[in-house]
């Protein structure tokens, strides 16, 4: 400690110390002189002897200074300043080196943070590792029947059954497998707003182990009986934004879907529930309030309707295999008890095949995760490759610089510097470069992570945008390692430099052309860059073409001039009896708007991720054993097909004549007609729908052309039946989407449509408005992400490789200046010189491509599942990539080669 203080004092009083030292040395010299005179030397001899004894005063002072730590500190500062000056001298290279590092580090960190958050993030609860999920749990919905395979949706009474048995789990909680949007009114807001709610069982929070910030969480007593206990636990964000962070909100009332609820608790900011997806939950409501919250008939009856996900907390020391066997047995028992008695052999088979998988639940569930898992991992591979290319550039840069400074090092050695000092200076330079690059990389990481998360999950997700420290440390560490490694290589060479040879002229010439081996490492690096760039370009090309292929498919409906309006008559309090009248009013009003050619309503948009599926049974036809008769369903209004631009193939479309009182008609698609009626007599046939809410027999009135209904990647069309929404009852009578066919750009009519709807009923909430193009594009978000990012990174890699090649070639030419000068002086033509330099680049290019092609093929095979409409070894893409990199490389190599031809032999030889 004292040494530290003394050292700082010494640094501050350098001049004073120097004077003191001088004075001390003088008195030493005088005392020495006197002593020698006493011993009999003459005064002049004595003086001389004393001076020799001391030696150089400067050297003594230097040794004194070196004895303490502050001189090391000083020299390090000196090194840093020198490094900065050297870096400023070649701004181009410095900028590229720093930029490459920054981009490599920033991009890696951003993508890995996203991956980490999406894939690995633990639920913010106590001991998340004890949580298990029952089944894979991505995708929600409600189904009935026997799964015949993995089961991850369960009925409510099964949950109640599990509460009795406590052998393996401390607790099992159930929650809805999909969020419910609800209409909220607080006493501070005049109009109703919509929020996302999640129906959960009473023990949800206790099983997860989450404590509230204010008030209390739900309790088991809250879900004792249906319809009672209208309580709500709100999220932190909702509390902040909508409830103004008012602490007295506990105990206050809010109206949910017209029903009064009491707010009993607020959760802390980091709690987001179990679902890590785009729109985070605003509030958690008791499962028993399901009918009120969903405004649908109860799903809590013991009728085997499977719609809940389960999670459990293991008892310590529980064997997971045993627990899994037990729960599977329980599920099978339940299914047997609820199947149609007597159980058929087929049903029994399916029951035996049903099982429940217990999976680690610590990261919760996420739809996004399953959608983006592959693309993100691929992107990570891409970004790592870019980082490698950036490191290679950095390495080349450092090697070139070090080699060009051999004279400087020889001079310094000759002047008395220690080799250690020079090595330290080189290392300082490289570390400085890494640190600056890393700092920029951090900024980029912060910005990039936010951007990425916004794209993937929207701005309201629970994904946090703080970059992962581990990854930051890793990428930082990697760049420092590269810097150190490639800084040490030349530093070690210095230890082998002897002072004299570099100064002689012959040595310069010899070194410049004979140093083949010293060019090996940069050449290897450039070849590697070429190879990796080729790989990245080809991969990016494949993704771009995949997206293109997906987008350019025939979707079966018009993708341009259609506007979609998402509204919710249920929230506005409309009863089923009032709906048909409402639809009439809306459609006639909206169709009268200028710019609107036709309009219709539907239960679901013409293409969307979620689907209504049900088996159907054709009248007069028995299904083959084990035949899957599931059909997609949608409920639509009159002129649906005309509005969507879907041509009718046979029969008629759904018209306004199809009212609640007229005979039940249905339109099916070509695939359905061909499947059930291969002889082409579908029109006039009848069928019933297994879903209990769709009653009666439906007569096929027309056949419409096939279209895409959910996943753009589905190449085989699915069976689809369109039911007239006017002819459905109760809950199925509700339509949530208005489709409008416009004369020109759909965006132009948005204001008019909103106005019209407000005129009809100001309480009718309009949840979103988008064009059909937006709707379709949203289904290809992952492809878009990966295509855009891989293109960006591959272009980045290409530029880095290009710059790298240019730098290495230029450096080579500069080193060979004397040799080139001699050749030209001896009569070499400029064409010959050009070729001499160029062929080196061409060799590198050729080797890079030769190595790159098999690597690319391997990589393409690895990403096969992501491609669409292409084979992995697509020759067009590969050829284009090879062409691109060849072109860029040639351009990058041409300029240094041209520079070589411009060498003036006189100037080159003069500086011998």
């Amino acid at each position, binding site marked *: 400690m*004292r040494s530290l203080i*003394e050292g700082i004092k010494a640094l501050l009083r350098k001049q004073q110390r120097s004077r*003191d030292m001088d*004075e001390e040395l003088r008195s030493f010299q005088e005392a020495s002189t006197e002593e020698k005179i006493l011993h009999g030397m003459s005064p002049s001899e004595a003086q001389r002897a004393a001076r020799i004894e*001391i030696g150089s005063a400067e050297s*003594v002072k230097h040794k*004194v200074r070196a*004895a*303490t730590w502050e001189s090391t500190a000083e020299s390090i500062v000196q090194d840093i300043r020198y490094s900065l000056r050297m870096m400023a001298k070649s701004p181009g290279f410095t900028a590229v080196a720093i930029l490459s590092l920054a981009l490599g580090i920033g991009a890696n960190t951003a993508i890995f943070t996203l991956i980490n958050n999406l894939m690995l993030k633990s639920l913010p609860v106590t001991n998340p590792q004890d949580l298990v999920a029952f089944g894979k749990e991505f995708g929600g919905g409600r189904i009935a029947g026997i799964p015949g395979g993995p089961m991850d949706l369960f009925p409510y009474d099964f949950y109640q059954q599990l509460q009795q048995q406590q052998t393996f789990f401390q607790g099992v909680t159930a929650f809805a497998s999909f969020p419910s949007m609800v209409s909220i009114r607080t006493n501070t807001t005049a109009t109703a707003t919509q929020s996302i709610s999640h129906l959960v069982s009473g023990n949800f929070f206790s099983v997860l182990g989450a404590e509230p910030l204010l008030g209390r969480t739900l309790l088991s007593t809250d879900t004792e009986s249906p319809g009672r206990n209208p309580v709500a636990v709100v999220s932190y964000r909702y509390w902040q934004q909508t409830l103004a962070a008012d602490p007295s909100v506990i105990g206050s009332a809010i109206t949910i879907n017209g029903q009064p609820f009491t707010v009993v608790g607020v959760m802390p900011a980091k709690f987001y529930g179990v679902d890590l997806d785009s729109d985070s939950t605003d509030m958690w409501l008791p499962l028993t309030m399901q009918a009120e919250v969903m405004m649908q008939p109860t799903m809590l009856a013991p009728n085997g309707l499977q719609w809940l996900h389960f999670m459990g907390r293991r008892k310590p020391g529980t064997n997971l295999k045993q627990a899994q066997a037990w729960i599977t047995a329980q599920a099978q028992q339940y299914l047997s008890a609820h199947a149609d008695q007597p159980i058929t052999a087929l049903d029994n088979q399916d029951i035996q095949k049903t099982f429940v998988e217990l999976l680690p639940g610590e990261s919760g569930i996420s739809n996004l995760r399953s959608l983006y898992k592959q693309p993100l991992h691929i992107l990570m591979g891409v970004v790592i490759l870019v980082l490698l290319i950036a490191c290679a550039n950095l390495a080349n840069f450092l090697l070139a610089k070090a080699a060009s400074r051999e004279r400087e090092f020889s001079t310094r050695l000759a002047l008395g510097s220690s080799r250690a000092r020079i090595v330290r200076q080189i290392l300082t330079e490289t570390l400085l470069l890494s640190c600056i690059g890393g700092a920029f990389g951090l900024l980029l990481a912060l910005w990039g992570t936010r951007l990425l998360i916004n794209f993937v999950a929207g701005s309201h997700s629970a994904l946090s945008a703080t970059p992962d420290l581990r990854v930051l440390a890793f990428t930082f560490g990697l760049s420092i390692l590269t810097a150190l490694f490639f800084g040490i290589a030349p530093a070690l060479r210095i230890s082998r430099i002897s002072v004299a040879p570099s100064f002689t002229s012959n040595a310069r010439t010899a070194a410049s052309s004979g140093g083949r081996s010293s060019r090996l490492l940069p050449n290897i690096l450039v070849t590697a860059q070429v190879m990796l760039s080729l790989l990245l370009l080809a991969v990016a090309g494949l993704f771009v073409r995949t997206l293109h292929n997906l987008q350019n498919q025939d979707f079966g409906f018009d993708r341009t001039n259609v506007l979609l309006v998402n509204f919710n008559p249920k929230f506005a309090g409309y009863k089923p009896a009032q709906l048909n009248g409402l639809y009439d009013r809306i459609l006639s009003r909206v169709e009268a708007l200028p710019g609107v050619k036709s309009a219709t309503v539907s239960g679901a948009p013409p293409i969307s991720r979620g689907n209504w599926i049900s088996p159907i049974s054709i009248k007069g036809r028995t299904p083959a054993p084990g035949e899957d008769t599931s059909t997609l369903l949608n409920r639509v209004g009159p002129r649906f097909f005309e509005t969507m631009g879907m041509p009718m193939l046979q029969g008629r479309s759904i018209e306004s004549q199809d009212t609640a009182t007229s005979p039940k008609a249905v339109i099916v698609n070509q695939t359905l007609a061909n499947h059930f009626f291969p002889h082409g007599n579908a029109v006039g046939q009848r069928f019933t729908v297994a879903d209990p809410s769709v009653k009666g027999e439906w007569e096929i009135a027309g056949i419409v052309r096939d279209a895409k209904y959910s996943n753009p990647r589905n190449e085989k069309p699915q069976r689809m039946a369109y039911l007239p929404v006017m002819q459905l009852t109760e809950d199925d009578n509700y339509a949530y989407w208005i489709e409008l066919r416009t004369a020109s750009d759909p965006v132009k009519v948005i204001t008019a449509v909103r106005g019209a709807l407000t005129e009809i009923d100001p309480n009718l909430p309009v949840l979103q408005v988008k064009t059909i193009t937006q709707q379709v594009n949203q289904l290809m978000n992952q492809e878009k992400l990966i295509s855009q990012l891989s293109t960006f990174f591959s272009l980045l890699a290409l530029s880095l490789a290009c710059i790298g090649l240019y730098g290495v070639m230029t450096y080579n030419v500069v080193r060979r200046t004397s040799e080139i000068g001699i050749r030209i002086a001896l009569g070499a033509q400029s064409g010959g010189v050009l070729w001499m330099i160029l062929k080196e680049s061409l060799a590198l290019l050729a080797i890079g491509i030769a190595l790159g092609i098999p690597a690319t093929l391997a990589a393409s095979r690895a990403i096969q599942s992501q491609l669409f409409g292409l084979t992995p070894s697509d020759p067009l893409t590969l050829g284009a990539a090879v062409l691109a990199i060849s072109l860029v490389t040639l351009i990058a190599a041409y300029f240094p080669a041209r520079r070589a031809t411009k060498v003036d032999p006189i100037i080159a030889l003069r500086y011998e």
Partner: protein
Amino acid sequence: MPDRSTDLIQGTLEMLVLKTLALEPMHGYGIALRIEQISNGVFSVNPGSLFPALTRLERASRIKAEWRATKNNRRAKYYLLTERGRKALKEETQQWSRQLAAITSILEA
């Protein structure tokens, strides 16, 4: 001057300086002279080694320095042994004796 100067190892020089200062405070030349005289010319300490050693000792708080007037009314920096230095001297002397005994017994074995 002997033509083969024996270089003292860094640590031992410091120990000898401490011992020299144990007798009485001295300035730089005085220390060098004393060491040379007592060792009968075997060790001659040049300023290039002495002054760094003195600085190190000062940093370690084993000696402290003050400017005093010399016999000729000049200013010279005198060094004094501190309490810490005294203790350090004792320890290092003991350690040195142990090492010396060990080396001697090996050489005589």
